[in-house]
C-alpha cells in the first residue's frame, strides 16, 4: 500500500506532507505534554518491533501465499492514538529512506494512509468505543477484525483518491477502486487475524499492557475527535482543491511554468524548446531525411499552417528526443564514471 513518488504530483504530495507534518506536530506536542517518560523508549522499541515483525511471514493455508503484520492497529491498541501515529510515521520514514518503500515526497501520503486511519479513526471511533471494559474473547476478536477491515478499506481508498488527484496514472477511478478495494479486503482479513492473534496472546500473558493503553486517557477523548474532524475537513478541502486544480492543469508549478514560457501543457516533447534554438529546431523538423511521414506532408498542404507545422514537428522531435536521450545518458554515465575515477585516484594519491 506504499505509494510511490512516481505517481504523485507535487501539489498532492506537498498537500499531504503538510497534513502529515501538522499531525506529527500535534502528536509530538501531546506526547510531550503527557510527560510519560516511559513511553519514549517504548515507542522507539515498538517501532523497531513493527519493523522486525513485518519481515516475518506466515503461510496462508490453501493459497500458497504468505502474509505478515501491518501493525497500525496493533500499535494504536498498545500505545494510544498520538504515540502510535508517531511510531508508525517513524517506521515509514525509515522504510522510505532505506528500502525506498514509497518515496520521500510520497511520505506525507503514506503516513496519512497508514498512520492517520488506524490511530485517529479506527482506535478512537471504532475500537475503543466497541471494545468495552472487559471484553469477552469473541467480542475482542470481532471488534479487532472489523476495525482492521475498515482500516484496510479507508487506506486504499485514500491511495486511489491521491493517485487520481495527481493525474499521472491513467487508470479510471472505478477500475482502480475495483482493483484496490477487494484486494485489501483480503489483506484486511489477514491483518485482522494477525492482530487478534497477537492481542489475545498479550492479553493472556500480560493483560495490564492492554488495559493501561486503553484506560490511559479517558479525558483525551474529546480533543482527539475535534482534531480528527478538523483534519478530515482539511483533507477534504485539500483533496477537493487539489483535484479540481489537477483536473484542469496538472499542477500549480506546471501552470506557472506554462505561463512563464508561454508553451502549452500537453505538447510533451516540444515544450522544453529554448527560444534561441527554436529556429534550428524548425529547420531540423522540415528536413526530409528525418521526416518519415512524407505522405502527410503532401496531403498536408490543405491543413492550416499551425496544424501542418505540428504534424511535421512530431517525428523529428521524436528522433531528436531519442538521440538526445541516448547522448544525455552517455554523458551522465561518463560524468559519474569520470568523477569516481578521479576521486579514487585522489584517494590513492593521498595515501
Amino acid at each position, binding site marked *: 500500500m506504499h505509494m510511490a513518488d*512516481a505517481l504523485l504530483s507535487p501539489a498532492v504530495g506537498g498537500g499531504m506532507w503538510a497534513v502529515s507534518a501538522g499531525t506529527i506536530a500535534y502528536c509530538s506536542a501531546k506526547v510531550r505534554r503527557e510527560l510519560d517518560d516511559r513511553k*519514549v523508549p517504548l515507542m522507539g522499541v515498538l517501532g523497531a518491533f513493527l519493523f522486525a515483525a513485518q519481515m516475518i511471514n506466515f503461510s496462508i493455508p490453501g493459497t500458497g501465499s504468505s502474509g505478515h503484520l501491518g501493525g497500525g492497529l496493533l500499535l494504536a491498541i498498545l500505545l494510544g492514538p498520538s504515540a502510535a501515529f508517531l511510531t508508525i510515521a517513524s517506521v515509514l520514514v525509515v522504510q522510505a529512506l532505506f528500502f525506498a518503500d514509497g518515496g520521500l515526497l510520497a511520505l506525507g501520503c503514506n503516513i496519512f494512509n497508514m498512520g492517520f486511519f488506524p490511530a485517529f479513526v479506527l482506535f478512537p471511533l471504532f475500537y475503543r468505543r466497541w471494545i468495552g471494559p472487559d471484553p469477552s474473547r469473541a467480542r475482542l476478536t470481532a471488534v479487532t477484525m472489523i476495525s482492521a477491515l475498515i482500516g484496510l478499506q479507508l487506506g486504499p481508498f485514500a491511495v486511489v483518491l491521491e493517485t487520481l488527484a495527481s493525474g499521472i496514472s491513467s487508470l479510471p477511478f472505478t477500475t482502480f477502486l475495483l482493483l484496490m478495494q477487494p484486494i485489501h479486503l483480503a489483506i484486511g482479513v489477514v491483518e485482522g487475524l494477525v492482530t487478534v492473534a497477537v492481542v489475545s496472546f498479550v492479553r493472556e500473558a500480560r493483560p495490564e499492557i492492554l488495559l493501561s493503553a486503553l484506560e490511559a486517557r479517558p479525558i483525551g477523548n474529546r480533543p482527539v475527535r475535534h482534531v480528527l474532524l478538523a483534519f478530515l475537513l482539511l483533507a477534504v478541502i485539500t483533496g477537493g482543491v487539489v483535484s479540481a486544480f489537477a483536473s484542469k492543469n496538472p499542477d500549480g508549478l506546471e501552470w506557472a511554468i506554462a505561463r512563464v514560457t508561454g508553451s502549452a501543457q500537453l505538447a510533451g516533447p516540444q515544450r522544453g524548446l529554448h527560444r534561441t534554438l527554436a529556429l534550428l529546431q524548425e529547420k531540423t523538423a522540415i528536413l526530409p531525411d528525418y521526416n518519415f511521414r512524407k505522405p502527410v506532408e503532401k496531403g498536408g498542404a490543405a491543413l492550416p499552417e499551425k496544424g501542418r507545422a505540428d504534424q511535421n514537428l512530431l517525428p523529428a522531435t521524436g528522433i531528436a528526443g531519442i538521440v538526445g536521450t541516448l547522448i544525455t545518458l552517455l554523458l551522465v554515465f561518463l560524468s559519474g564514471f569520470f568523477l569516481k575515477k578521479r576521486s579514487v585516484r585522489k584517494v590513492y594519491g593521498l595515501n
Partner: protein
Amino acid sequence: MASIDGALLDFKRLDRLANGDTALHRLDPRAKVLATLFFIVSVVSFGRYELSALIPFFVFPAVLVGLGDLPAGYLARKIALLCPFALAVGMFNPVFDRTVQLHLGPLAVSGGWISCASIVVRAALTVAAALVLVALTGFPAICRAMERLGMPNAFAVQLIFLYRYIFVLTEEGGRASRARDLRSCGNKGQGLGSYGPLLGTLLLRTWMRAERVHMAMLARGFTGSFQTRQQFRFGAAELLYLFGWSALFLALRLHNATQILGSLVTGIFS
C-alpha cells in the same frame, strides 16, 4: 524479502556507506536534505507525458555517486529491484490511454506507453535520490537536520530511538523466524497458529526491553531529548551545493536539455 538476515545485511551495508569521508559526506546534512527535496519536487512536477526532459536529471545521482565514492553497482541493483513495482502500476497506462502521441517512422507510440515509461523513469530518479541521500548523510544526521529545519523534537527522538533498535530487534526477529523454520516441516508449522505467539513473544520481550532501557536512561539523567555535540555549519560550501543544484534543476525543469542536445546533433549530421 527472501531472508531477514539478507535484508538486514543489505540494510547495514547502506547504513555503513554514510561513514565515508568525502567532501560530500562532510557537507552539512541540511544542504543535502534540501537539495534532495528540491530534486524530487522538480522531477515529479513534470507532466505525465514527459520523458526526454527527465533524463538529464540522472546527472544528480550520478555525480553524487561519483564524488561521494559510492558503490554504483550496488545502488543500481537496489533501484532496479524497485522498478518492477513502478512498472506494475504504470502498465495500466498503455491499456487505458491509446491516443497516439508520437510517430517514429512507421511506429506509432501511444500516450500510455510514454506515460508508463515516464513513471518508471520517475521512480528510478526519486528512489536513486533517496538512497544517495542516505548513503551520503546517514540516518541520524538526516534526523538532526530535519530537527534543525523544524521537525518536532519528540519525533526526532522517536526516529533516533527507532534507528538504534531496528538492528537489535530485526536480529532478534530473524533468530525467532529461523528457529520456527527449523522446527517446521515445509509449510506445516508456519501458519497463523505459531505466528501469533511468535510475534506476541517478540512483542513482550520488546516491551520488557523498553522498560529496562527506560530505567537505564533514567539512571543516566534522560530529560526528554538527546544531547549531542555535533557542530552544524552552513557555510559557503553548503550554499554552493544547495544553490548550484537548485539552479541546475530549475534550468532542466524549464528547458528540455535532451531535446536541445538531440536537435543540435541531428542538425549537425543532416
